[in-house]
């Protein structure tokens, strides 16, 4: 039950913890208590489940990819988180956290965003529940995801640029944490992945557990068993933990796919940043390195602590793919299945494509964590250069 338990003392083996400024410790303790209480309260669960169904469109379907499967020589199944309201899995987490914020009497949500998917989802939940919303986004990401900036603004959120450091996701997290330090009495920090200080890695995993629970049922109906492999892209790792959680106690191989330029497990060593201990891309002096990837959503030098634990105990393996492989997978799924994926899950597809000989004949479940609308303009630029 390595992945299913509540982390003891906020730790997943050697990883996790609560490394935050002292100002935030009581807030993290309050949040932990509030989530534990809400999560065991059937009224809270009912309300969340109603929103997930009537507002977000759950359950998301499982799609068997016939033409892609034929091309790759294996059986590809997609968990269609791209079909959720707001276009990605992120809505599962934010609806839960926004309801929790209201329950705690908070009136304002603070969030970070990389590609903009979590920011859009947070702005959406804030609009739905009548909360003020401020989203921090790296200046570099604001430029390459301008459509999502506009969507957040349409939804009533204020988007503030993170102009320090690498001006991407890691810096947006720094700014969001600084905001929370100053506004902790009225604000909830709606963190977008299974990272940060305890209780976030646990809470966000629980809120995404629905992905794995649904997928397991759907696979058993379709296949009569679990798939052989479950693959998902990993930045912080929330969509991956969500789908892994449905299969971790079974036999399926779990594969997390990182971008080559942001491979915390592939290229990192343990470190402490943004509230928890986990694998981290850093230099020999402990300075955090800047991730570099085609996908703003995975442009992160760290990874959620439970992934580090799963890697350490060997329950999941972590692979990395290069930008060119991602672009090829993006085009491949579009052409063969009529589904334009987000660049993030295109990483998982890129690994499946590369590993097709190893995977020959197997049933491979890929979490299609988001749709590609947000990436079309960027890809148009890149592909027209050919």
């Amino acid at each position, binding site marked *: 039950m390595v992945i299913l338990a509540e982390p003891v003392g906020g730790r997943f083996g050697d990883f996790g913890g609560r490394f935050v*400024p*002292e100002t935030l*410790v009581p807030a993290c303790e309050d949040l932990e208590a509030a989530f534990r209480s809400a999560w065991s309260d059937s009224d809270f669960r009912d309300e969340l489940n109603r929103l997930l169904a009537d507002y977000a469109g759950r359950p998301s379907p499982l799609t068997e990819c016939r033409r892609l499967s034929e091309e790759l020589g294996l059986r590809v199944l997609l968990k269609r988180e791209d079909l959720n309201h707001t276009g990605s899995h992120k809505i599962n987490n934010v609806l839960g956290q926004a309801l929790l914020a209201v329950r705690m009497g908070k009136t304002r949500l603070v969030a970070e965003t990389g590609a903009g998917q979590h920011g859009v989802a947070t702005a959406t939940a804030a609009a739905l529940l009548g909360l003020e919303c401020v989203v921090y986004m790296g200046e570099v990401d604001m430029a390459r995801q301008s459509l999502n900036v506009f969507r957040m603004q349409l939804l009533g959120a204020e988007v503030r640029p993170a102009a320090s450091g690498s001006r991407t996701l890691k810096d947006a997290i720094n700014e969001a944490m*600084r905001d929370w330090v*100053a506004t902790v009495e009225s604000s909830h920090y709606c963190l977008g992945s299974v990272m940060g200080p305890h209780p976030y890695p646990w809470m966000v995993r629980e809120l995404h557990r629905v992905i794995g629970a649904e997928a397991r049922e759907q696979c058993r109906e379709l296949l009569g068993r679990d798939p052989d492999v479950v693959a998902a892209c990993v930045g912080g790792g929330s969509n991956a933990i969500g789908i892994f959680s449905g299969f971790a106690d079974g036999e399926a191989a779990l594969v997390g796919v990182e971008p080559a330029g942001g491979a915390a497990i592939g290229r990192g060593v343990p470190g402490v940043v943004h509230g928890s201990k986990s694998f981290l891309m850093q230099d020999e002096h*402990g300075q955090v390195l800047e991730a570099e990837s085609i996908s703003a959503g995975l442009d992160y030098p760290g990874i959620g602590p439970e992934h580090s634990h799963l890697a350490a105990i060997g329950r999941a393996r972590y692979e990395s793919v290069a930008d060119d492989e991602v672009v090829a997978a993006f085009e491949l799924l579009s052409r063969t299945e009529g589904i334009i994926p987000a660049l993030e899950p295109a990483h998982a597809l890129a690994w499946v494509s590369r590993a097709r000989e190893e995977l020959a004949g197997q049933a491979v479940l890929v979490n299609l964590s988001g749709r590609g609308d947000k990436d079309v303009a960027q890809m148009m630029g890149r592909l027209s250069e050919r």
Partner: protein
Amino acid sequence: MSVEPGPLEAALRARRSQGGKALVPYLTGGLGDWAAALAAAADAGADAVEVGIPFSDPVMDGPVIQQANDRALAEGITPLGVLDDLGRLDAGVPLAVMTYYNIAFRFGLERFASVLAERGVAAAILPDLPLEEAGPWTEAADAAGVETVLLAAPTASDERLGRICARTRGFVYGVGLLGVTGVRDELASSAVVMADRLKQLTDVPVLVGVGVGTPEQAEQVCRVADGAVVGSAVVCRILEGGGPAAVGELVGRFRRALS
């Protein structure tokens, strides 16, 4: 369970027992002519000096110290480089380093503690290492004779503040407001409240920092606190091109306000 005070705590207690208020300026290691600025601060009446070891992701710091970090890192400064420079200084006052936990963690906790001790650094302040996570570090620091200064924030209960005061060494660092480091127009009312709450809980010197940016603000908070930590105001002076003399002049103004 009294602990023999280390050199930092001894210096701050001495200032207090003379009826004075302690002044601890901060400057960023590796930024400009920082070693000379440090000496100038000590000459101008600092009781101790806090030296920041730059980190790529300083979440407790506002724009001024972020910029100082970025600039020092861009010049290739390393943690060991800062510490080696400190080892060659004779400032005549106790020194504390302030950095983020990953710097110490990457160094190796025992090695970091022993290097601090070898370089003559009295104390360490790690603002993203709260009480519950501090055990492995304080064990290493205690063994090396390095004082670990803990922060205390307005959000903590008295019960929590009591535990922080019991574990801190050197002084207890009261956070003056809800927010990150930086100069504000006025002293937050929370700064005096913080000092007062801590003074009622502990005999350890109570210094307040974060949002103490002018001599007047330092004087206000020190009507209750035993002293003040002044960071962004000093660093801002250096970022604007001020040399050691300018730093000495600024620290001197704080010193006079507290006399």
